[in-house]
């Protein structure tokens, strides 16, 4: 032993190894302890020999699966109208069926699967999914709901098997399954066309296969080992492919893998070659395979969506050229910019959009009261600008005049085509970025003042003075103030229609904000040239799609004075989400966890931390535990530790997120928390039974405890099931409502 002081780091480094050895011991000991303990509990259909054990387990698994499917598929068709986010994800499924390109902040896999499910079940993609509450009528929506419910129903057998593997105890697994089956929140979330059941399916599948391959550790490189390892990788790719929060389960598997490798590396019986083989196998299955699959989903995504659609404007000009129906697809446009050309100007920064103006003025008190200039993501007539010479107002399209090309360094004027106002800047502060200058539309019919003059420059000019459509990256420098036209990327308030702010920045640092390119170009006097140079490679589109998604995600900011859900609300089940219906005549579905389950989970986390640290300290103090307690404490520390880690990884990062958050973000964490509850109560009751062993009733403590928990949970589900299956009638704040007594928190508004 190193000396007490200064040895902490070494101590913390030495500890995991001891832990690992212990865990192997637990694995060896666990099953025997479990069977011994279960054999003593008379309430279970006590299997006296292993011959009956296996069928018993299978029957129990079948029962759990059956219950889960029965609850998830019960009244799946109700309500027959769009609920909550079905309006988004159903719509996106339709886009896949119609092959039109769209933009969403989540990766494509989940929506592709929804689309596929719809396609296979005979949905033709014609329903508009306009807003929540719209009736489905004759459109076939059950296929998509059924697919989500199917995946949602599988969560429960997965959780059951995971806990069984971690604790080697049927009652623990059964308790977990009951917690999840009878949780109204999980149930509600699984019954609709949403990404969450798909995401949770992949998360739980990854967790299960990870636990399974951990338990194959004594037979490395055997067939089951390989199967579970590569399944883990496949499910990781799936989780990440549905939502970016799939990253959390990747972190968890990564952590598990690292500690596993660290353990193998410290095992001096293994040669370095063997350790190298282990490392390679994990790199292959947990890094290369998921990456390949993840990339493949994008390849399919881009292949399927080959028609122009509502998402075009979010992407760069080059990207759009891929989409049939887009005006850049197989485009033939004049190549060089000339005076008199009608153009659209696009920011080089992703997901900022086109330079835009419209017939609304900046409100009073915000700079000069002139016409607004913004950037706008959608294609629109108000994005068109005409390039004119700064000093003449003659029509350059007059056929008698020769064509004059715009050159690098020219002084130009940009006239907004619809309103005939000039792009203008002056020494007034910009609306949001106070240190920049305001950009406005100014002048009448193209006659303004010298503040309308801009110098056009090509960035990184290689040769030639002309300005090429699409390919030249240009900057517009304001002649009088010397500032550069840029987009700050900030969203204007309501008066600016929530478009993005355009400013003239006096800081000449070269950033993408101030770089633009010309996209559309109309000039009847110039010959059209086919532009098929714009074919970005797959890595480029993939990168761009990710940049746009990340920007989209960080753009989802809560607004002032809006009630937003905070992460601390979630575990205490503070407030639910209205899935459908508001008034007492509506069919109402309210996403809210079963409070009994959730508060039990919360209590269990506290109890776990307490009992876990007692055991950890006892082990560290070198206390000698009886063999049975030793086994239980290993289950608690090893298995429970993994589940607690899962809960923390899936919960705490939300505290750091700036984007807008919703209650349903907590559900992956809730799965882990329920598994922990199952494992914890089983272990604690076993400990109780053990410590009371001298009394005659001791054997019943465990069985009675588990049974009363199961019954209590089932009864609470009976009470709260209308939340998930739908209710009509007076709201719960009305004393006449059957739910009136169940509004345990004032913040629940069902």
């Amino acid at each position, binding site marked *: *032993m*190193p*000396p*007490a*002081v*200064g*040895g*902490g*780091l*070494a*101590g*913390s*480094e030495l500890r995991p190894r001891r832990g690992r050895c212990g865990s192997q011991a637990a694995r060896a000991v666990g099953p025997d302890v479990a069977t011994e303990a279960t054999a003593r509990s008379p309430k279970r259909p006590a299997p006296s020999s292993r011959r009956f054990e296996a069928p018993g387990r299978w029957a129990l698994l079948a029962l759990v699966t059956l219950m889960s499917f029965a609850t998830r598929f019960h009244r799946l068709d109700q309500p027959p109208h769009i609920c909550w986010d079905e309006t988004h994800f159903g719509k996106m499924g339709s886009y896949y069926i119609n092959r039109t390109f769209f933009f969403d902040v989540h990766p494509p896999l989940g929506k592709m699967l929804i689309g596929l499910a719809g396609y296979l079940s005979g949905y033709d993609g014609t329903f508009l999914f306009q807003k929540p509450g719209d009736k489905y009528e004759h459109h076939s929506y059950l296929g998509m709901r059924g697919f989500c419910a199917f995946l949602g129903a599988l969560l429960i057998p997965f959780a059951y098997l995971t806990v069984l593997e971690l604790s080697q105890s049927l009652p623990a697994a059964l308790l977990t399954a009951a917690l999840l089956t009878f949780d109204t929140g999980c149930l509600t979330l699984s019954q609709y066309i949403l990404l969450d059941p798909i995401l949770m399916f992949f998360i739980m599948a990854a967790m299960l296969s990870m636990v399974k391959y951990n338990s194959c550790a004594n037979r490395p490189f055997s067939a089951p080992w390989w199967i579970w390892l590569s399944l883990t990788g496949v499910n990781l790719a799936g989780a990440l492919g549905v939502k970016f929060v799939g990253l959390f389960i990747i972190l968890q598997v990564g952590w598990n893998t690292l500690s596993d490798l*660290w353990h193998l*590396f*410290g095992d*001096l019986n293994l040669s370095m070659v063997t350790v190298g083989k282990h490392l390679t196998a994990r790199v292959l299955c947990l890094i290369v395979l998921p990456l390949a699959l993840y990339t493949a989903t994008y390849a399919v995504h881009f292949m399927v969506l080959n028609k122009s659609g509502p998402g075009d404007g979010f992407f760069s000009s080059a990207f759009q050229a891929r989409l049939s129906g887009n005006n850049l697809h197989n485009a033939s446009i004049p190549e060089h910019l000339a005076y008199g050309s009608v153009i659209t100007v696009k920011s080089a920064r992703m997901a900022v959009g086109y330079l835009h103006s419209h017939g609304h003025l900046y*409100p*009073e*008190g915000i700079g000069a009261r002139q016409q607004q200039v913004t950037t706008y993501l959608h294609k629109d007539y108000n994005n068109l600008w005409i390039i004119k010479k700064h000093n003449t107002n003659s029509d350059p399209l007059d056929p008698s005049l020769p064509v004059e090309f715009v050159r690098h360094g020219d002084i130009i004027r940009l006239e907004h085509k619809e309103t005939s106002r000039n792009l203008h800047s002056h020494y007034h502060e910009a609306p949001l*970025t*106070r*240190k*920049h200058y305001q950009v406005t539309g100014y002048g009448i019919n193209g006659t303004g003042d010298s503040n309308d003059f801009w110098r056009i420059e090509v960035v990184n000019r290689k040769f030639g003075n002309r300005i090429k459509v699409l390919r030249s990256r240009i900057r517009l420098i304001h002649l009088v103030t010397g500032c550069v036209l840029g987009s700050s990327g900030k969203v204007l308030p*309501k008066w600016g229609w929530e478009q993005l702010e355009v400013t003239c920045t006096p*800081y000449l640092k070269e950033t993408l904000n101030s770089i633009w390119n010309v996209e559309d170009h109309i000039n009847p006097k110039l010959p059209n040239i086919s532009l098929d140079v714009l074919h970005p490679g797959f890595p480029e589109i993939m990168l761009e799609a990710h940049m746009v998604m990340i920007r989209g995600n960080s753009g989802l900011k809560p607004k*002032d*004075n809006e*009630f937003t859900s905070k992460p601390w609300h979630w575990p205490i089940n*503070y*407030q639910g989400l209205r899935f459908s219906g*508001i008034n007492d005549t509506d069919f109402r579905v309210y996403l809210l966890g079963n409070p009994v389950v959730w508060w039990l989970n919360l209590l269990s986390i506290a109890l776990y931390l307490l009992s876990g640290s007692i055991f950890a*300290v006892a082990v*560290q*103090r*070198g206390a000698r535990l009886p063999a049975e307690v030793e086994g239980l404490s290993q289950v608690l520390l090893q298995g429970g530790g993994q589940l607690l880690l899962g809960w923390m990884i899936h919960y705490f990062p939300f505290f*750091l997120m*700036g984007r807008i958050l919703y209650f349903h973000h907590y559900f992956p964490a809730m799965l882990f928390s329920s598994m922990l509850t199952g494992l914890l109560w089983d272990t604690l009751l076993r400990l109780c039974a053990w410590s009371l062993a001298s009394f005659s009733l001791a054997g019943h403590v465990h069985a009675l405890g588990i049974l009363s928990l199961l019954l209590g949970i089932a009864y609470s589900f009976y009470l709260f099931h209308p939340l998930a299956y739908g209710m009509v009638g007076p709201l719960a*704040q009305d004393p006449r409502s059957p739910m009136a007594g169940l509004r345990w928190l*004032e*913040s629940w*508004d069902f």
Partner: protein
Amino acid sequence: MLGFLQRPVVVTADINLNVVALTAVGLLSRLWQLSYPRAVVFDEVYYGQYISFYMKRIFFLDGSGPPFGHMLLALGGYLGGFDGNFLWNRIGAEYSTNVPVWSLRLLPALAGALSVPMAYQIMWELGFSHCAAVGAALLILIENSLITQSRLMLLESVLIFFNLLAVLSYLKFSNSQKHRPFSPSWWFWLMLTGVACSCAVGTKYVGVFTYLLVLGVAAAHAWHLIGDQTLSNVHVLCHLLARAVALLVIPVLVYLLFFYVHLLLLCRSGPHDQIMSSAFQASLEGGLARITQGQPLEVAYGSQVTLKNVFGQPVPCWLHSHQSTYPMIYENGRGSSHQQQVTCYPFKDVNNWWIVKDPGRHQLVVNNPPRPVRHGDIVQLVHGMTTRLLNTHDVAAPLSPHSQEVSCYIDYNVSMPAQNLWRLDIVNRESDTDVWKTILSEVRFVHVNTSAILKLSGAPLPDWGFRQLEVVGEKLSRGYHGSTVWNVEEHRYGRSQEQKERELELRSPAQMDASRNLSFMARFSELQWRMLTVRSDDSEHKYSSTPLDWVTLDTSIAYWLHPRTSAQIHLLGNIVIWASASLATLVYALLFVWYLLRRRRRVCDLPEDCWLRWALAGALCAGGWAVNYVPFFLMEKTLFLYHYLPALAFQILLLPVVLEHVSGRLCSPLMSTSF
């Protein structure tokens, strides 16, 4: 007893001349020509105004950091006899003669100077040679960015000082743990660790990262202590308790102490009052306290009140109405009720007065004795100047069409009946029969007919609404939110029957004074919460930079420029030190991973004590760098080069560690053959 008579009194002085010399050069470098330039340099303009506030004892709110740092700077001003009369408006402004520049800059300079010998001590306590320790101190001494930052009225050098002090005292403590646990010096260093951590956090919030680092190392050591089976259980428990008290309880207490002194000093009302709640404002001298002094505590039927919104975003404002009506048709074509506008108005105005009326009675005066309004009572609110009743109905609000319009009811005989009954809901009630109290009660008004809740939407109305803020009836209220909660600020019992006389009648019945009722903890938690949530507009700055620029020193800040002579102060690091410190971090990380992997395979390149020393030095120095640097990547505020200096101070300490290790272990053939 009287032992000194038998033996001579001997004082054994053990003076390390290295430390003395380093302190001397540290002082020299930081204090020399301290009062030059006699002009406002960079962020002095920012801290200076707060010093002035302290000198004048005027309350202010600054979201950038806790009050300890500001108070230290103000202490300098106090010692120099500064009266606070200086207009801190522009960088480069010449100081007037009443500003004691030298003493204002003295404390940061001293903190910077003392960091030099502390670096030496830290190295020594970590178990490295005097040579390495002197090297570390010299590197801190000659790093010009640290010198620049120390010589001005800024807080980074103070933060670095407390960071280093926390680490140093923890090392002293843990070294004395080996030989003399629970000795006075053990206690002293343990307590000092806690106090220094607290001072670091109190100077700037980022100090919390160093605190967490020290806590982490202490926890690792404590965990090891638990595993030490030579100690009895009671012994272990004592050790753990001592640490918990010193490292958890004491810092919290000291932190509270800062706020206590802060609030004790700032007792006068000032420009930032409006951000605070009415109760807080009432606890300051002048300002609201003068108005609310002696006003009746319990709101009764007939009370005249002004209602302030608790959330107060975007600006604090009061419920308001005036003669103008909502336009018949809005710009976007929707219709309105054309009744009298109800808004929220950010200025004091006679139109902010409302009278609480009992729906069952006609009179607008307070009975004798007054009949207090309680939680759950149904009331009407009468606008004082127009005597119209506050009303809401199923008409879309002007800017928030999902909510109901709130108006003062005008009967146009268009089959739109008055719906002017409101149920009073006291949010912070203690029992269901609580009385509505001035200032203290936070109330919601729930509309009886539609159960909508009176809410400030915060949207400024267009020209027809005089750009005042929109007030709506929120139907889909989701839990508690400050924008639906109001409190009575000014209050008097109405006595006048006639509308003309209804003004200006104040009676002061013998009531308890609500203003002095706020406890320190309530004031602390409100102030701390506001400080953390006050929004500074994230403005781009000419010299702002990103964390990535710092490592490569790709940025600098012009602090000051003399308008005529072009003499200037520029914050710029010493590129040699920065580059070699970064290199040292990299080498350390690589070597550490290498040793760690080899140890795992039972190949011990380093003897055990050498490895422990190496790991602890890394945990504190490289760890100190990482915890003070990495979090900036997640921060959304405007960042400057000087934010990197605390991290740099730790990184510099790593350089001699790595150098000594490399020269001793790897370069010396003697050592390498011996293993």
